[in-house]
């Protein structure tokens, strides 16, 4: 009965080390518990193709077998996979609106656990090499975040510390 007027759009959850890509539709893609992980939402408003990925670690060389089985676990294999899937749905690089969230850290002035920082650095480098600008981001700090991508409009929302805001 999804055609009922006023029925809420379906929420599709993207787990840690997973990605989802959609073309059109009214779904809302959501990923929870972004700590040091990075979430990337990419949307082409003309093709209405969009995707959301939740990468846990920066570089796949740490475990090539896992990267082959689950490319979305790593920024360097996951984000290219996300972009390629979007291009297959007709998205174009110059129209892609890319938003980033996550990369938090502990209160870690000594840099003992640098996963968030490394995730973000590798992501920036990769997008730069692909000639893609980050349109908006909500990164760093000591909070966990939830990221939503509305497929109908490309609206991206961050929920953190009990508050929601558009990105």
């Amino acid at each position, binding site marked *: 009965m999804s055609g009922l007027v006023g029925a809420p759009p379906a929420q599709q959850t993207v787990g*840690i*080390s997973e990605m989802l890509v959609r073309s059109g539709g009214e779904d809302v893609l959501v990923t*929870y*518990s*972004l*700590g*040091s*992980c990075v979430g990337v939402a990419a949307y082409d408003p003309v093709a209405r193709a969009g995707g959301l990925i939740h990468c*846990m*670690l*920066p570089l796949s060389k*740490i*475990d090539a077998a*896992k990267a082959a089985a689950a490319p979305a*676990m790593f920024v360097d294999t996951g984000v290219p996979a996300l972009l390629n899937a979007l291009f297959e749905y007709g998205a174009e690089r110059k129209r892609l609106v890319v938003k980033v969230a*996550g990369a*938090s*850290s*502990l*209160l*870690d002035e*000594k840099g*003992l*656990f*640098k*996963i*968030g920082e*490394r995730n973000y650095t590798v992501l920036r480098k990769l997008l730069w090499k692909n000639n893609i600008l980050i349109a908006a981001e909500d990164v760093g*700090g*000591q*909070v*966990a975040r939830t990221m939503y991508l509305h497929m109908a409009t490309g609206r991206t929302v961050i929920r953190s*510390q*009990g508050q929601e805001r558009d990105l």
Partner: protein
Amino acid sequence: MSRRDEVLSRLRDVPAMPAAAMEAIRVLQDPRADAQAIMKALEHDPGLTANVLRLANSAYFGTPRKVSTVREAAVRLGTKRILRVVVACAAAPVVRRGIKGYDLPPGELWQHSASVAVGTDALAEVLKAALPASAFTAGLLHDVGKILLGTYLEVDAAAIIQLAVSEKIGFDEAERRVLGIDHAEAGAALLESWDLPEDVVQAARWHHRPDDAPGRLITLDLVHAADALSMAEGLGIGRDGLQYRPSKAVVLRLGLTTRVEELTLCRVLVALKELKDMFAAPGGR
């Protein structure tokens, strides 16, 4: 009565774990112990038995053929692993509940606790170190103090996190300033009142400030490091967020490097996926 005394006077309000489970935890500590007593105790606890079988049949423990009795599961998995299963099943109802004051929906603290428990295991494996028997249990129970504070005393973490952020101090230190006690000490008092092994109590007590612990304890170091990694992974993070300061001394003692941390996180994630049946629904009866 001070706020601290009020907290400590409420220990008895938190329901303890089933007797069979607490016995399993004690046996887990003793390498020479005989598991027969646990099996016997379990046979009289059908809810716990059902959960133990469900977990023993999960991908994480990877039994090739389904097991249908605890004895069969013990033969397949070995005494050590079956005891861990029992401990996990016993801890689940305690840590699965939501904690309103800390903004943890039901299941979130359980995910975090399980990821710290399997994290101690993964760390020891990656570091090729021997895993102390108490680490798994300590990982599962290190945060029980949040239940006491957030549910039974209705502490509102929002005010505490405000102080922590503005002063750039750890959330636990802000808890101490506001309440006179932090969730680590409250948890340790709770575990002690349940008569759990000293290493488990001490690891909970000092998990946010291992440098202040009276003695060195590998279990504590592993729980501290696995907790840091689990928070990084973002699992079961409440209002306190990642507002904690990791210990350099622990990182040096364990020999943690970026590579070790990342390899460990890979393993934890795989283990949690394999254990997902445990999180799916409140099991048992």
